[in-house]
């Protein structure tokens, strides 16, 4: 589904990713962990198509297509979804209007007609229950005046509505209390299927108690320095990142 080869990325002349490799197959859940500044968010932003990041080398293939040649909206229509670390507030655009426009854009891309307003509303009301937000949030401006946890849950609601093939969660667990974390996990688990994949970027092991990954990778200084199963996350929880970093060869 997703194949990243030797990815090198710069932002404002500073190299953040320094030859990253990652393969995600359909149905898999990957967790990417690492200390602050290791390049975790850069990876998810590059995958979503944020323009400030300059890819200097390497390739990204998504379902056999060159992702780096695709506009952000095209990536979304092909099935990539980024749950933002800091979701934007857009006053004046209702959640419903936003979701419906997004969904219809995606449907159009796949040669489908616009979704019927009644069906759409029904679906939205169903799915907002999963993340335990009040239905009144559908009528409010996108993220307008939402708390941090509500914003994250709203991201998951969007994900449930748009049903992506590949969901990227960028530190979706940060700043969440246990209840909200549970809601987010419910949403992600509801989406899991043999065709869908998830890449979670996180600093903490905590989220992985709720969304159990198939693979765990440690990202440090722009490269994946260790990969393993679920047990790697537990080991990191216990020992921190220090032991891994000191195993790394130093200097160029």
């Amino acid at each position, binding site marked *: 589904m997703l194949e990243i080869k030797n990815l090198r990325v710069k932002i404002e002349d500073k190299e953040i990713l320094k030859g990253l490799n990652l393969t995600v197959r359909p149905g898999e859940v990957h967790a990417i962990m690492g200390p602050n500044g290791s390049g975790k968010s850069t990876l998810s932003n590059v995958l*979503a198509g944020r323009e400030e990041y300059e890819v200097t080398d390497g390739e990204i293939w998504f379902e056999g297509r060159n992702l780096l040649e695709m506009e952000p*909206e095209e990536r979304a229509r092909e099935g990539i*979804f980024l749950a933002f670390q800091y979701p934007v507030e857009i*006053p004046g655009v209702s959640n419903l209007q936003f979701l419906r*426009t997004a969904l219809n854009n995606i449907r159009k891309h796949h040669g489908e007609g616009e979704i019927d307003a009644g069906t759409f509303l029904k679906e939205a009301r169903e799915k907002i229950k999963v993340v335990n937000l009040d239905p009144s949030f559908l009528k409010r*401006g996108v993220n307008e005046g939402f708390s941090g946890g509500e914003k994250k849950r709203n991201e998951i609601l969007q994900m449930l509505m748009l049903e992506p093939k590949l969901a990227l969660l960028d530190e979706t667990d940060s700043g969440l209390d246990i209840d909200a974390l549970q809601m987010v996990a419910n949403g992600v688990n509801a989406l899991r299927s043999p065709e869908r994949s998830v890449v979670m970027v996180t600093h903490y092991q905590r989220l992985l108690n709720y969304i159990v990954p198939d693979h765990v990778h440690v990202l440090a200084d722009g490269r994946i320095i260790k990969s393993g199963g679920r047990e790697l996350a537990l080991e990191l929880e216990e020992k921190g990142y220090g032991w891994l970093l000191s195993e790394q060869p130093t200097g160029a």
Partner: protein
Amino acid sequence: MTEQTFETRSIEAARSQPQFQAETLRWLQPLREQSLEQLAELGFPTRKTEIWRYTSIYPLTQGDFLRPAPAQDTGSDFAIPGLDSYCLVFQNGVLDVQRSQLDGLPFEVVPFSQASGEQQEFIRQHLGTLVGSQDHPFALLNTGWLQEGLLIRIAKEQRLDKPIQVVFDHSEASNSYTAQPRLLVQVEHHGEAVLIEQHLAQPGNTEIFTNTVTEVFMAEGAKLTHYQLNLEPENVLHVGNVQVSLAAHAQYESHQFSLAGKLKRRDLEVDLNQSGANARLFAIYLGRNSQHVDYRTVLNHRAAHCTSEELVKGVLRDEARAVFNGRIHIYPDAQQTLAEMNNRNLLLSKNAEVNTKPELEIYADDVKCAHGATVGQIDKESLFYLRSRGIDSAEAYRILSDAFVYEVLDQMPQPEILAYVSRWVEEFHDRVVLEESL
């Protein structure tokens, strides 16, 4: 041979237009002469006139406007779908009796040319008294030129069941012309009404100059919601002036919607003369291509315990230019004033331009005043957020710009009018392109 100035030409044209000598308007003659004399003295604004600094009347001086329109029997469709109203129609500055409802109205409407007795007296005592100041040469021209005017009066404690819709329509003609209509509105004690000024024109190539003046007198506890929909196409050069006087606890609410043009200038001045008066001003202007629009508002807080609130927003695309000049003047007696003014502008192109100047002048010490002005672009983070959900950039632009505009339009109490102006917003946002340079 010396070339005549625009003032001289205008004044001569005003005196020679047929309505100037009309028997039915003879009783206005002294006021008209006086206005033209004042105009001769004052002159039209130049770039050195502070309140006209960013708007040139050059297009006006270059055109051949100084004649009344030929008679016309066709007009634009002015219906506001779903809205039932009392309709009064000015076609090319002249009252269109056929299309206006003048009889059987629950309120008083009198064309100046048919006013008699007490009505004449009222008009004489009030006409031009709110626009007599030095700032309004075009209002002086309107008084001098005046083809027809309407006196509209809402009686004491009367609540109108339907809005009054005054249409200022303009026909295409083979030559340029000018329209100089006039409204004089009185809302008596605790009367309530909705007044819609709707400026339209049939699309065409002939340039038209419309110069309108509306004066509104509101007695104690009176309420007026006043729409000013300035929807003429680009070939209409529009100078419009609204002057409002508020007595105690009167509530005036204005909703302006303007498409820019070759020359579009709107002045709105409100005097809060007695305690407890309240004014709320909302406005949107939209400019595209090389269009221009100039908004000026003045709020004169002359008494204590008055409040004013103002939100003016503009969106400019292409090379359009907008000017906003908002002024709040708090007089020494106006203690306990609450006044807030905001002007926000959204530029959709790097070549669009805004000159905004909010001004506060405060001579009372116990007041709460705030003002703000911003000029910005579409927020890149919001744009990316929408795109990351599959929405293409043009549509994302439109959605974000819509959100900006509707913050103001949603304040309109009449949903039919909101829906009516929406079509121009939609058209405005059509084919907005993402500029890489932003």
